[in-house]
């Protein structure tokens, strides 16, 4: 295969990664933006989403679409509820102190991971996609007699992957509308801007925090349900999304939703494309160094405001 089709394939795979990453990272960014705490257990909420999706799909049986549809609704709700409970029993009681929250969420990470291992087991298991038709993509090549259309082997995608991208875009738009156009969003933004002032104006800050924490976890779980037909559910699958979401949130500017989405697309796409040219380890070294240097020399991120 020539370079061109390679790049298209890499960008398509990259777009799926970017879509899922954007959802996960927006969850983390919401929590960081509104509550000013770093949730180390975010990756475990992602993993819980995938594992719960498997449990639901497995116990319902029938057509794969039924189980998947139920999981798509139920898994984020369940994970969100768990997160709200964790917020009310733990985070609220450490007063959302940034450092203590980090330690508490590291503890939470161990607890969730171990419970998943004890109930779900160490195996990786797939959830069947509701629909999965292959689409081959054409490529244009200059042959004798001008341009002609060819169908290179291996160049293609599936309807499901396209649906993942579409669903992610829809959900992200929904989150954006929620933040900008609704009363709940207004209350959340007020809390983000000035917690004490919001409290003085009668906003139930603690309820807002619980809701934001639940929403952040639910977004991670939703991302996981979307990806689980492509990757498999495994109890250690939370580590990579956590690190990548961190990178995305930082590059995008802490607490900035459009910046986060932009960075997710950038990282998702470049991850696919860079690894075509370099060894994956070298690509990761370059990516992490880049993130570090961006933070040192442009700490507000790509889309953040100076002094924020």
């Amino acid at each position: 295969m020539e370079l061109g089709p390679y790049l298209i394939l890499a960008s398509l795979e990259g777009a799926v990664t970017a879509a899922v990453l954007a959802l996960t990272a927006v969850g983390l960014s919401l929590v960081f933006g509104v509550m000013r705490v770093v949730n180390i257990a975010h990756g475990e909420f992602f993993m819980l989403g995938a594992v719960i999706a498997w449990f639901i799909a497995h116990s319902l049986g029938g057509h794969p679409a039924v189980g998947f549809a139920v999981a798509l609704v139920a898994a984020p709700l369940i994970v969100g509820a768990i997160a709200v409970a964790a917020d009310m029993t733990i985070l609220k009681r450490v007063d959302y102190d940034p450092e203590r929250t980090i330690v508490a969420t590291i503890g939470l990470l161990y607890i969730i991971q171990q419970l998943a291992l004890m109930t779900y087991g160490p195996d990786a298991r797939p959830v069947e996609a509701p629909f999965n038709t292959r689409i081959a993509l054409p490529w244009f090549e200059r042959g004798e007699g001008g341009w002609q259309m060819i169908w290179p082997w291996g160049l293609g995608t599936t309807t499901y992957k396209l649906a993942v991208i579409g669903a992610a875009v829809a959900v992200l738009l929904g989150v954006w509308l929620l933040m900008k156009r609704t009363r709940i969003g207004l209350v959340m933004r007020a809390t983000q801007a000035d917690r004490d002032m919001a409290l003085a104006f009668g906003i139930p800050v603690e309820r807002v925090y619980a809701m934001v924490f639940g929403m952040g976890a639910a977004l991670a779980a939703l991302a996981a349900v979307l990806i689980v037909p492509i990757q498999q559910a495994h109890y250690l699958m939370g580590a990579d999304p956590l690190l990548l979401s961190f990178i995305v949130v930082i590059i995008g500017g802490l607490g900035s939703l459009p910046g986060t989405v932009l960075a997710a697309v950038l990282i998702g796409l470049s991850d696919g494309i860079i690894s075509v040219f370099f060894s994956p380890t070298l690509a990761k070294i370059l990516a992490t160094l880049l993130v570090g240097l961006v933070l040192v020399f442009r700490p507000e991120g790509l889309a953040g405001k100076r002094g924020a």
Partner: protein
Amino acid sequence: MSTGAKVMALHGGVLVLLFVLQFILPAYHHGNLARIMVLASYAVGYNILFGYTGLLSLGHALFFAAGMYGMGLGIQHLDLSVAPALLAGVLAGAVVSTALALLALRTSGVAFMIVTLMFAQAGYLTVLYFGEFTRGDEGFVIQQAQRVLWGIDLSDPTNRYFAALILFALSLLASLWLVRRPFGKTLVAIRENEERVRMLGYDTYKHKLMAMVISGTISAAAGAAYGLLFGYAGASFASVQYSIFPLLWVLLGGAGTVLGPFVGTLFMFYLIDLSSGITTAYMLIAGVVLVLLTLFAPQGLIGELRNRLWRWLP
């Protein structure tokens, strides 16, 4: 007793107790304690930056690994003997921590955490990338014959215990000396209110830089000693987990206390050790204890002790 005498008596007493335990402990706990003392030295180094200066680094594994690989690669590929290899490890740590400090101290708060995390991750991946020399995840064993310092075989349990005790005593006393001097007091002042310290005319950047280099160098010494005493260097020591461990130990024991890092390391080590005997789900127990401690003893064990009983603890 004056405060100074009390402090000396307590810390000296701990060191004497550790010395005496050498002759009493059964072999298993004897080995554990040697390991704990080396890891506690790492935590002592971490505490200088985190506990006293208030800079939360998530990348100390980079310094630990710099020491370990500076020493290990020196022995393995340059045929250094033990003393120069140890020196190479400590120097590697000093150089790496200076370089990272120059970059990372341009940021603060969460950005500082992530910058240190990213560079440490890059360091970990670099160890994997040069797998030809470092043998990556698998690591390499440092043979017994290569672990003899001035005729003393460091793989022997008794010698190993004393070597660990010397390292721990040095780092503990260095940390104690440091925090009782004006330099240490300035670090604490920076932790409490950096703006005000700068307004008083102190060069806070220089202080933070020095704190980070001292912290990184002690961590590297612990890393070099760990590789040497236990005869193994592997990439897992450079991973994120080994950056989070000293944070946990220090928080458990009490950030900003001299004895805290040791108490935290001891507590965590035996917590995991004992609970893995009862159930395979020891991580669950570790997680629950972490959550409970943040809820009920946020200052750490020694920190709570200082708040409730001994207000003079450094």
